[in-house]
């Protein structure tokens, strides 16, 4: 151990003892200063930020990790990062909780004869692996009976950047075959389509912010599709342009669809007809020139408008309007993805979409291959099937599994699909080596388990897009005996070769980057977290022969058997990998407000037919898969369509499309039957409709002004005087997409406990901010209302507190003083917004030593009421800086955690007292209203009514 390491460890020990003593009333408390001052100039009690990259999903958002006293406390998006533009999604926010998670793997493990895991050393694990690698026959017994030479293979999740090179060099040096990478969402239909069309098997980048008309077909832009935060951020900016239009078509109901200006329900499988119609119409315009497609359009079905209307389930006028608007648009953008490309005709949908993109001149403009998203090494489920067959035939020797969990989400349940078969044949590999951070279902089946370091402890880089290079750098020292994936591969190579010196992955990475980009770029990369490079425009040519060949092969199968089960992507769990984060189950699904457990969404019509209501249990089955789930009625869902969320419960159906290798999300011929039982589901909203109370005053009624409803309301209490500031918030409902990132950010920032399903069923959730979907009683409009403490001027909670624990502060904050609170809960009963949360218990934090606690916010104990503070610690922090500089707090200087992470910038915070500030201006806007303003509470939170969406019904 060198001096520097020692000092770091000492520092960790001192902060650990400081933190661990927090919250305990002990007589003596130790203060352990550093032995020598830290050479990075860290000051105790002052936070520092490290710019790195989020690796919770493949999107590659730039994050700045806030580290205080050598503990990572919070992740926030890098303001200037071209992918996420300062925002971070619900999963990115929650991902920090894995760092100090008690279940993290702490040592390497090997399986003993009884099948139990035994702790071992890295050297021992390495020698077991190298022995097995050198034994090419894969003979476990050493008797030399096994005659067949076996191949060693390496399977990982999607890799990017230099790590991918490290895998290549490891595989080359050790004679291991690198398999196409495993992803549940490999976008293989889109890549295969682009290979057929343009010879480029890539996912292009889509520029919503440069389009004037977006036509999205099935793509779950805000949930999981390629780059959700980026899409949301672009969408937030684009909505402010008057010329921007967005039409979304989907067979089910998704969060993305509900945000579009126009949303249409398309019949499952109707996408190819819609695209055929659009292509035919476009071909009539593109008669000459480079982009004429007349010859190809002839290969598409030729139906009368009524025929197309019938196949797509859209009206004749709608289809007509769609094609007219697409042709008229100057910079259109058509995106097909999600459930539309993950179905039997998914590849055809992707091919026709690619052709449409080409024919309407989107390539190089709103669809860019020069900035392609790095999915180059990702395979598809066809590759998984191949692996399964090779395993079965005894072809596989050593099997490496790096950050993949094919069995975590499915394969446990019924059916005999590829993943179940893969699991059954898993034993046939001679040695299985699992690498990961947690003991997943896949790792449990491995012989050797190597614990990997968390992203915040590792070096690495990422190429989220062709033009962006993003760095992963450690913010904290490794907590356990773990190593980063790059280091493991380098050390394994060395162990295999028997060489003594081991280059660290950090040196390998920096060396490679220096060679490629030069030292100046590296410096910028390390300080800013990313570099954006200029990319040359790319000329993409259409391979007409390959396309014609494909178009001839398209089968227009109309025999769609209803009801249809849609396995929709989940905004909370991504492809299932984020299921382990407790916070993501604690925060409810924005469409249904269900937090823990699975459910099946059915249409109102189906509910009527089956005579079931919410929480009634039904059995849902598709070929080879059957499960019992409680019902949740989803408004807007068409008759004959049911919906479950991928990974929302232990057993989701699985199948894949043989053409594209894409996972199937639409299952035809599903059956649903009542069981007669009823299951309690933690749906946090008592009612999804306002039940006649005007929570959002305009919802479902004609245009009316609701501004200043609280004014002139009779009150017994004197008006509050505000000297310099009255803190307030303005939330734009046009921009809120219901993604719930704000809720996750709030949990992490304010040390809010995760309480679990049982307390949710008792209505004892602790969230300070929640997304309330408010469905109109009539019609299909839904608004997402972020509900937090409204910091009312005439707060009903303040007047009923017998001990003055909640009071109005001179700056307009509704303050809650925890040590005054005696827990009468009068305030909560009197609050019309249900935003006050009571600590029924001393909630045990999941991490040891209170490590993931934000040290700037206190932990509340049993018997105390708590609620949103407008991030008082951030207001105090800004005041501290302002006082240092002898000035007032500037507008935009205080950004609460929710506003900071909002991808669309829907939340504004500032001083309402000053009319020149952003909130001061917005609160006076015509669109501004206060929730339940007619009660006379005069909240400090203003909402801007949604006017952008075109609402039907």
């Amino acid at each position: 151990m060198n001096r520097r390491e020692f000092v770091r460890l000492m520092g960790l020990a001192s902060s650990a003892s400081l933190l661990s003593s927090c919250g305990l009333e002990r007589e003596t408390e130790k203060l352990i200063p550093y032995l020598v001052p830290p050479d990075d100039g860290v000051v105790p009690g002052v936070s520092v930020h490290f710019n790195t990259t989020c690796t919770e999903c493949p999107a590659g958002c730039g994050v700045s990790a806030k580290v205080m006293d050598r503990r990572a406390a919070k992740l926030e998006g890098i303001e200037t990062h071209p992918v996420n533009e300062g925002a971070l999604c619900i999963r990115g926010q929650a991902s920090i909780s894995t760092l100090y998670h008690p279940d993290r793997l702490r040592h390497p493990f090997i399986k003993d004869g009884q099948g139990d895991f035994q702790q071992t050393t890295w050297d021992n694990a390495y020698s077991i692996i190298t022995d097995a690698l050198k034994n090419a026959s894969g003979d476990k017994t050493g008797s030399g009976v096994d005659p067949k030479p076996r191949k060693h293979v390496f399977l990982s999740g999607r890799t990017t950047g230099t790590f991918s090179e490290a895998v290549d060099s490891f595989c080359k040096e050790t004679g291991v075959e690198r398999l196409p990478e495993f992803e549940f969402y490999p976008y293989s239909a889109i890549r295969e389509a682009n290979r057929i069309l343009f010879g480029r098997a890539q996912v292009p980048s889509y520029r919503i912010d440069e389009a004037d008309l977006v036509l999205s077909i099935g793509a779950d832009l805000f949930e999981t599709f390629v780059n959700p935060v980026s899409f949301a951020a672009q969408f937030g900016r684009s909505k402010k342009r008057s010329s921007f239009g967005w039409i979304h078509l989907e067979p089910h109901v998704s969060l993305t669809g509900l945000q579009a200006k126009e949303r249409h329900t398309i019949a499952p499988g109707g996408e190819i007809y819609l695209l055929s119609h659009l292509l035919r119409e476009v071909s009539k315009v593109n008669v000459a020139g480079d982009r004429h497609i007349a010859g190809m359009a002839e290969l598409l079905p030729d139906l009368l408008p009524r025929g197309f209307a019938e196949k797509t389930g859209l009206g004749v006028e709608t289809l007509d309007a769609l094609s007219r608007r697409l042709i008229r648009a100057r910079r259109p953008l058509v995106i097909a993805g999600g459930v539309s490309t993950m179905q039997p005709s998914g590849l055809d949908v992707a091919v026709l979409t690619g052709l449409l993109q080409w024919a309407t001149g989107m390539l190089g403009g709103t669809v860019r291959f020069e900035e392609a998203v790095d999915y180059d090494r990702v395979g598809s489920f066809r590759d998984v099937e191949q692996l399964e067959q090779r395993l079965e035939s005894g072809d596989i020797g050593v099997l490496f599994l790096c950050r993949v969990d094919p069995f975590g989400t499915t394969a446990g349940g019924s059916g005999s699909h590829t993943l179940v078969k893969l699991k059954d044949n898993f034993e046939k590999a001679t040695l299985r080596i699992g690498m990961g951070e947690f003991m997943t279902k896949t790792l449990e089946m491995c012989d050797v388990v190597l614990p990997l370091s968390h992203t915040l402890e590792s070096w690495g880089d990422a190429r989220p897009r062709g033009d962006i290079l993003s760095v992963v750098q450690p913010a904290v020292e490794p907590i356990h005996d773990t190593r980063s994936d790059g280091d493991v591969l380098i050390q394994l190579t060395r162990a295999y070769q028997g060489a003594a010196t081991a280059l660290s992955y950090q040196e390998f990475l920096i060396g490679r980057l220096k060679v490629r980009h030069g030292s100046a770029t590296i410096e910028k990369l390390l300080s800013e977290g990313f570099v954006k490079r200029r990319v040359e425009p790319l000329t993409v040519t259409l391979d007409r022969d390959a396309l014609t060949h494909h178009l001839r092969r398209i089968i227009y199968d109309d025999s769609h058997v209803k009801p249809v089960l849609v396995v929709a992507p989940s905004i909370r769990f991504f492809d299932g990998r984020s299921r382990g984060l407790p916070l993501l189950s604690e925060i409810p699904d924005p469409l249904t407000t269900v937090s823990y457990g699975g459910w099946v969404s059915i249409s109102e019509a189906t509910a009527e037919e089956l005579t079931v209501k919410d929480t009634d249990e039904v059995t849902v089955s598709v070929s080879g898969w059957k499960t019992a789930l409680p019902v949740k009625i989803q408004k807007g869902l068409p008759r004959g369509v049911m919906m479950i969320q991928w990974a929302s419960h232990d057993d989701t159906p699985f199948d894949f499309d043989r053409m594209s290798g894409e996972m199937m999300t639409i299952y035809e011929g599903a059956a649903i039957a009542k069981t007669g039982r009823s299951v309690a589901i933690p749906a946090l909203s008592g009612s999804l409709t306002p039940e006649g109370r005007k929570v959002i005053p305009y919802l479902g009624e004609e245009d009316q002004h609701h501004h200043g409803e609280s004014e002139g309301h009779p009150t017994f209490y004197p008006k509050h005087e505000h000297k310099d500031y009255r803190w307030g918030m303005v939330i734009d409902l046009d921009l809120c997409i219901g993604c719930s990132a704000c809720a996750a950010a709030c949990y992490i920032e304010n040390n809010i406990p995760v309480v679990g399903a049982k307390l949710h069923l008792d209505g004892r959730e602790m969230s300070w901010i929640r997304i309330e979907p408010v469905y109109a009683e009539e019609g299909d409009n839904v608004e997402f209302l972020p509900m937090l403490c409204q910091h009312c001027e005439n707060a009903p909670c303040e007047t009923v507190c017998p001990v003055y624990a909640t009071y109005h502060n001179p700056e307009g904050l509704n303050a809650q003083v925890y040590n005054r609170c005696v827990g009468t809960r009068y305030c909560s009963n009197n609050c019309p917004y249900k935003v006050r949360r009571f600590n029924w218990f001393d909630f045990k934090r999941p991490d040891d030593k209170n490590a993931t606690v934000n040290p700037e916010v206190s932990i509340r104990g049993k018997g105390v009421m708590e609620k949103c503070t407008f991030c008082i610690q951030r207001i105090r922090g800004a005041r501290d800086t302002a006082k240092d500089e002898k000035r007032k707090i500037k507008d935009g200087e205080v950004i609460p955690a929710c506003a900071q992470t909002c991808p669309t910038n829907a939340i504004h915070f500032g001083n309402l007292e000053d009319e020149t500030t952003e909130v001061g201006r917005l609160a006076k806007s015509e669109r501004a209203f206060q929730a339940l303003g007619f009660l006379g509470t005069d909240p400090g939170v203003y909402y801007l009514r949604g006017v952008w969406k075109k609402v039907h019904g």
Partner: protein
Amino acid sequence: MKKYLGIPVGLAFFGFFVLAYLALASDWHRHKRAPDQPIDFSHKIHVGMVGLECLFCHETADKSTFAGIPTVEKCMSCHKNVATNRPEIQKLAAYWNAQTPMEWNRVHRIRVRNHVYFSHKRHVKANIDCAACHGEVEYMDKIRQISSLEMGWCVQCHRQKEAPTDCLTCHR
């Protein structure tokens, strides 16, 4: 007449104990918070006799919420040569030679359950004399807590200096 004398006498008798108890209790905290330290460091020598500034050792008091405790290296920067023959300095040197950080016992502590956030920086920047809370350490051989550090004590000073007295100033 005589039988009424018993009441004031009794009151005076028991009152004496009550007053004595109260007097002791009010002053007790001054005496109780002086824990033993790993070495008998004397502020009297360093501040009173040598004349070191507070910020020389507690260097983050004007930068951070924590005032900071000097590192062993900092102590040794002088004591490599100064007073090396004294037993307490030899103890210090032993820590340095063993490369072990020192575990000081905390003297001043605002009760954590009070959800109080105190910033040294703000008070130093407002030109509050360190002695206002920590007492005249230049006369203390062994450091002890001389202020109650209770809310009433904080607030009386805040009132006097017209500093904010809103709850959220300290509690959050």
